[in-house]
């Protein structure tokens, strides 16, 4: 009896997140932000619905199949999200207005070089007595 209520909680949560994904797909401005909504909400939404089904069925073979489906959804969904975003980026799809761009690559390269130089300086500093 109580297990049905728990399963109902998972069903309603899953449907809510799936609905949020679709609303985000309609409302957000460009490709990348839309992929945010789809890629995340579909994973947890489908996962919660499948977990509710597992609680209701309670049979080893079917639970194994549902776990397999859940793992496949959780691995395929981010990969397809990444592929769509990558294709859009390589084709030069513009971002929404007011987007920022942070380039941390060069800065982190410099940080690493400075850290290495400091390590070398500390090792040499012991010899020169600084």
């Amino acid at each position, binding site marked *: 009896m109580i297990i049905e209520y728990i399963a109902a909680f998972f069903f309603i949560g899953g449907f809510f997140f799936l609905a949020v994904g679709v609303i985000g797909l309609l*409302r957000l401005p460009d490709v990348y932000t839309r992929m945010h909504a789809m890629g995340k909400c579909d994973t947890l939404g489908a996962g919660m619905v499948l977990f509710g089904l597992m609680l209701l069925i309670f049979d080893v073979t079917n639970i194994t199949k549902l776990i397999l489906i859940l793992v496949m959804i959780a691995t395929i969904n981010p990969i397809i999200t990444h592929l769509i975003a990558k294709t859009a980026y390589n084709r030069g799809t513009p971002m929404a207005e007011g987007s920022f761009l942070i380039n941390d*690559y060069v800065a982190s390269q410099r940080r690493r070089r400075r850290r290495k130089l400091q390590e070398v300086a500390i090792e040499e500093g012991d010899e020169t007595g600084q």
Partner: protein
Amino acid sequence: MLGRIKGDFMGAMFIFLLLMAFWLLISASADWQHLVVGAVFCSILTVFWSNLVISSEDNKTDFSVVQILLLIGYFYKLVIEIVLANITVALIVLNPRLPISPGMIIMRCDLKRSLIRVLYVNSITLCPGTITVELEDNLLIVHAFTENYAHELEEWPLYQRLLNLEAFYKS
């Protein structure tokens, strides 16, 4: 095909046991007939796909218990992050003013092993406010939902866990 299995017996055994456990869970009965049929087909699959055995460059399996424990801890944190990510997306999407400030970050990624790189990229996609756009050698391009998430990504706690996990392979 057989030479690879002989060189990496532990990896082949691991794959075989995994397939056998899956077969037992699917069939849900432990007759001797089920067991024999399952063992025959699992060994055929293991021989056919012997290039999929878990091995490093020098054809030796290196897989320790500590790594499994670290992975379990990692996935436990990842589930919490996924739930948080969905709640933040729901809060942003259902807000009538739509408070987003999207943008790209170009970062550096120091992970070497391909399996751990895949884990890292997938968990960036599933975590709050970020999706990966490109990963080449050590260049990582990430699209962020708001500017706060972009700055949080540079000191991301799960990245440190993955670096710890990779350190076991090198030693």
